[in-house]
């Protein structure tokens, strides 16, 4: 692939600008902008449900040299609207036979600490890339997403140091038109604490976080409700 000129950040999260998907994807795309690429952002949840939105989405994809699809993991794969966008893009590309070389990069984030839980979601995007004639630019799996708190990534913060270093490395490769290196992929997909510690902390502390949120909503006494239970 020759020197890319522009990059499209495609956000699959319904939480839009306030999502981890956006925070992570934007860090990568900002790094690519620093290397001279022009960037555009698109939010699939705002586009896939209307004809005008779909046309805008397809035009943005057609124009991009690199597409960064940043999306959360939902129920072991991708959110409905991310899949919908992939279906629409695939149908479009089957009809128009694009000849321009384009590259697709995936970033998945999940609340679970194990990156392996995102393998299938990455594989699905990789299959989509292959079927839709995109060159595969690599896939990053960001576990324990709630630790990021949907805030802009900070290179100096210990919690995001590996992730930002990995994304920065990836931006070097991608800006040259190459898939990201395995080193970049692995570094960006690494937790900032050992996995056993993340798993322990998830069970001990993050569960308390749910209780706090429920308390804020006066729902703490209803947490174990079973509204659809049948008396069998």
């Amino acid at each position, binding site marked *: 692939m020759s020197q890319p000129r522009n990059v499209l950040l495609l956000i699959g999260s319904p939480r839009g600008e306030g999502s981890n998907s956006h925070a992570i994807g934007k860090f990568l795309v900002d790094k690519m902008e620093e290397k001279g690429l022009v960037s555009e952002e698109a939010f699939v949840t705002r586009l896939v449900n209307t004809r005008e939105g779909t046309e805008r989405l397809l035009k943005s994809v057609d124009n991009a040299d690199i597409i960064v699809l940043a999306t959360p993991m*939902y*129920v*072991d794969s*991708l*959110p409905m609207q991310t899949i919908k966008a992939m279906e629409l893009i695939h149908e479009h590309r089957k009809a128009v036979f694009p000849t321009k070389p384009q590259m697709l990069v995936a970033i998945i984030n999940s609340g679970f600490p194990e990156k392996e839980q995102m393998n299938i979601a990455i594989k*699905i995007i990789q*299959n989509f890339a292959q079927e839709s004639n995109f060159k595969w630019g690599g896939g990053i799996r960001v576990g324990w997403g709630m630790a990021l708190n949907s805030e802009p990534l900070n290179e100096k913060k210990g919690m995001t140091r590996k992730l930002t270093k990995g994304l920065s490395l990836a931006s070097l490769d991608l800006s040259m038109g190459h898939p990201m290196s395995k080193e970049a992929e692995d570094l960006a997909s690494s937790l900032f604490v050992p996995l056993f510690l993340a798993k322990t902390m998830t*069970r001990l502390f993050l569960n308390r976080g749910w209780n706090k949120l429920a308390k804020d909503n006066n729902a703490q006494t209803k947490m174990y409700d079973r509204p659809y239970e049948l008396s*069998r």
Partner: protein
Amino acid sequence: MKAVIFDGAKEGDLTIKAIEKSIADQLTENGWEVEPIELRNTQIAACLGCFGCWVKTPGTCVINDDGRETTRKAIQSDLMVWLTPVTFGGYSSELKKALDRIIPILLPYFQSYRGQIHHKMRYKKYPKLLVIGVQEPGVDYEETFIALAERNTLNFHPPAYAASVFQRDKDPKTIPVFVEEQLKKVEVIS
């Protein structure tokens, strides 16, 4: 015994329609009550990712549309069937819109389950699960599709499950035998 079928096909998918009919016929013959739901004809908004179903109205999605009904029917069934065209190795957006909204059947709390972190169960009993994908000729995503269904079982805790792929270019006359095999795997017919 009740079965609910989530039909995640587009309009005019004759193969999925034939599989759905065969499942309904064979279950009915065995005394089951079967409810097929054509998801394309339901009003199910996309999940907002707001966690409201866990921390505002625990167990119920904050969006009041058909998504609440499909979730209720799923958890109240004895067998849940998911039908979908194999879409890049996963599920169609039509099927996924219902599945994304089903998460209030779990608790937000995390537990270690089979060596990984997963959500705890909200209900004491979950339905059996049968997942069938119809795959286009020229692609081979069976491994990914089955692996996805297997991962879903770690979250939805079915007492029995089966996942399988049916090739779209296969003779439709083989559908009843294929369906019978799948229903036997989930131990709902003998």
